[in-house]
């Protein structure tokens, strides 16, 4: 069973991203800063991992192939893992479509646009998840 306990900072960050090179870069950048990272290569896989494990935060690409995209991951967390509701960072490959724009505006979920600098990433991660 998953406890109701608050997010434990020592838990890994779940990285949901289909692009291997981007995962490699994100993993390298975050681990170098002292974060532990677990990754899922699709939205569906991400949800599976979310259901079975404990994470300190979630970083998800918005546009992904397959049945589940970033927005749906976001909504699933809000519904099923509310303690992680404010621990989400979205990544967009282009200017988000109007539906996603509405989601971002509504929830205030931080979003980072590709391509981005390492310092931009670290700054937003520290702000959202806290320092490791």
């Amino acid at each position, binding site marked *: 069973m998953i406890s109701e306990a608050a997010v434990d900072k020592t838990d890994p960050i779940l990285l949901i991203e289909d*692009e291997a*090179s*981007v995962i*490699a*870069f*994100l993993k*390298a*950048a975050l681990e*170098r800063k002292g974060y532990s990272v677990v990754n899922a290569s699709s939205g569906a896989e991400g949800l599976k991992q979310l259901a079975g494990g404990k994470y300190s935060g979630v970083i998800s690409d918005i*546009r992904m192939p397959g049945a589940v995209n970033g927005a749906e991951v976001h909504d699933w967390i809000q519904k099923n893992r509310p303690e992680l509701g404010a621990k989400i960072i979205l990544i967009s*490959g*282009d*200017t988000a*479509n*109007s539906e996603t*724009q509405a989601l971002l505006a509504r929830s205030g979920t931080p979003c980072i646009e*590709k*391509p*981005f*600098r*390492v*310092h931009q*990433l670290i700054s937003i991660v520290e702000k959202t998840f806290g320092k490791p």
Partner: protein
Amino acid sequence: MELAVDAAQSRQLPEFLERFASRAARMLDSVWGAVAVFRGRETDLYSTVENEAVVSGALKSWIISSARESRIAAVVRALPRGEAASPVGQAVATSAVFVLISASDGERLGMLCLLRRRKSLDAQEKKLLHALASHAALSLENFRRFSQLEKSKRQWVEDIDAISDYIVVHDRAWKIVRTNRSLASHLGVPPVALVGEAMSGLRQIAETGSDLPCPFCRDTQRPREEYVAASGERIFLVSTSRAPGVAEDDTRTIHVLKDITDRREAERRYRELFDSIQEGLFFATPDGRFLDVNDAMVRMLGYASREEMLRADVSPHLYPAPAARERFLLALAERGVLRNYEETLRRKDGALLHTLQNITAVRDAQGRIAQIRGLMLDVTEQKSFQSQLQRERDFNQKILNTTQSMILVLDTAGLISYANRRCYEAGYREDELIGHRLVDWVEPSHRKDFEAALETTANGQQVENLELQVRRSDESMGHFSISLSPMRDEQSAVNNLVVVMTDITDAVLLQAKLAHSERMATIGRLVSGVAHEVNNPLAAILGFTDLLLENPEVPVSAREDLQIILQETQRTKDIVQDLLSFARQRPVQREPVQVNTVLRQTLKLRSYDFASHGVEVTEEFDETLGPALGDAQQLQQVFLNILNNAYDAVQETGRRGRIAIRTEREANSVQVVVTDNGTGIADPQHIFDPFYTTKQPGKGTGLGLSICYGIVRAHGGEIQCWNNAESGGSTFLVRIPIAAEQLAALAAKEAGR
């Protein structure tokens, strides 16, 4: 009595009167006696011949005037002095006795005059004189009647002879009693030569066809007969009367033969004409009953026969509206003759018949209409044909006048002979079209094409959808679609050309716009996909470059290379960002924006460059403009790009650059028009395509105007660009919709005005 018979039998009146005068003179002891007979104003004197010598001329005159003057039955007058009559051996007469001879009705017939010696008359003598006078009167009267009878008889024969009809009288023995002269002269003999001849001799004249000895008798028992008898070439109307003759057992039969050959012929011809004529002929009473109609009339009105039409009173059926008949009678009474009178009648079967009639009224002595005679034409077919023609004409006219195409008719020389209403609605004047060459309105560089099309059409072939520039009535050029068709005369030679012209300028523009926006949308989708795909590897390149730079193990020389990678990755990122801007992937902040303000801020950014390079900028802003709805930031980018483009264009020409900026309201939009006098655009169709640039390599990415396009479209606005026709350079036009609340406010303001 003896005298009276004598007189009646005598045909010689003078002889009788002289004898009577002489006898009266002897009986009354007179020397001379005479009878004066009054014939009108004349007086004839008959006297005893043997004593003629004793009465002088003067005495005779005196006797006549005295006889005429005398008004009483008997008078004795003395002879005038010196006029005594004294025959040899006898006594001298000195007085005259006048006795009136008057007819039974009192008319004065004459006077008995006696000259005597003795003056007085005794009673015996007076009685005798009166007896003589009444005797003479009777005789004179008889005589006069007899001579009148004679004269009348003679006259009668002359009259009979004067009649041109043949008259013949025969007795029971079939012998001719009399003929008149015309009959005798027809046979070439005097009338008397025929008397006593047999009637059968007249067979050569004509025959009734009976077996009787008389060729003209049919039924001898009838007192009167009338029939037509014919010979070879003549036709006679024979009228027969039978009358008892002088002898009791005799019967006189009188035939009068009237030659009716000509009349018959005329009648026959008339009837033939009447019946064979194709026009309806009729005779009718004023109350509407037909007296006679011809076959054509019967046919026209759909009756079975003439008899059927004459039998019934058909006029109530004939007139579908009784008022029409009243109107007709009134018009006829007024004018007497109706020419080409149009009337709709009803046939027996109920179908309507359109007629054209010529009517004459025949009036009686009192001036009332006694008969109506008329001729009737069936114009139903013409009428329906005519009305169909009229309908077709109206229909065609309506089409010609309501079509949105201009339709013109040209003669083979290309001169306009007709232009439909649309041409005039489009502003052309009749005097500049009719009689002028249509080709003159065609844009000069297109005239060759038009003339070729005219020739093709004149040779009988249709030309369709020829697209040409044609001068409009307001001198502007319009894009027209033109179709030409040949019009042929009866000999199927082309004598006219029909030109249908439609101004498709707007349609062409719209189509071009549509094609352009479709193309832009396709490019947008492509660019968006590419940008997305590029961003992933770009994110890895940028990220790893950053990580490498943060790695202290990386040597300085490699760091410099990494810096270049970082820099170029940044540039790539910018290009991708611009592409996404064009592809409308960037959200638009929709807020009321004062376009004039945005323009002024934008101009401020470039004012230094403009001023230092001598580019003159003129502003013509509508200060009453309401706010547009949009993103001030993005709109500034649009205007900046347009201004940069204009600046580059005027810089290239080398002459003094001018940029004019105008703002105005256009329908529900704010419109910004930027005009420059630069080099113009090589291909305005592609100016908004991504990477389309006319600039030197390295001077621009070719995305600036594409971004403008994306931004303006994301605003729901419009961006256009064209080369200026006359002044050179190019013009950019941007339209941004006005804020809805602003529109509502404007509408309220306008409504309240």
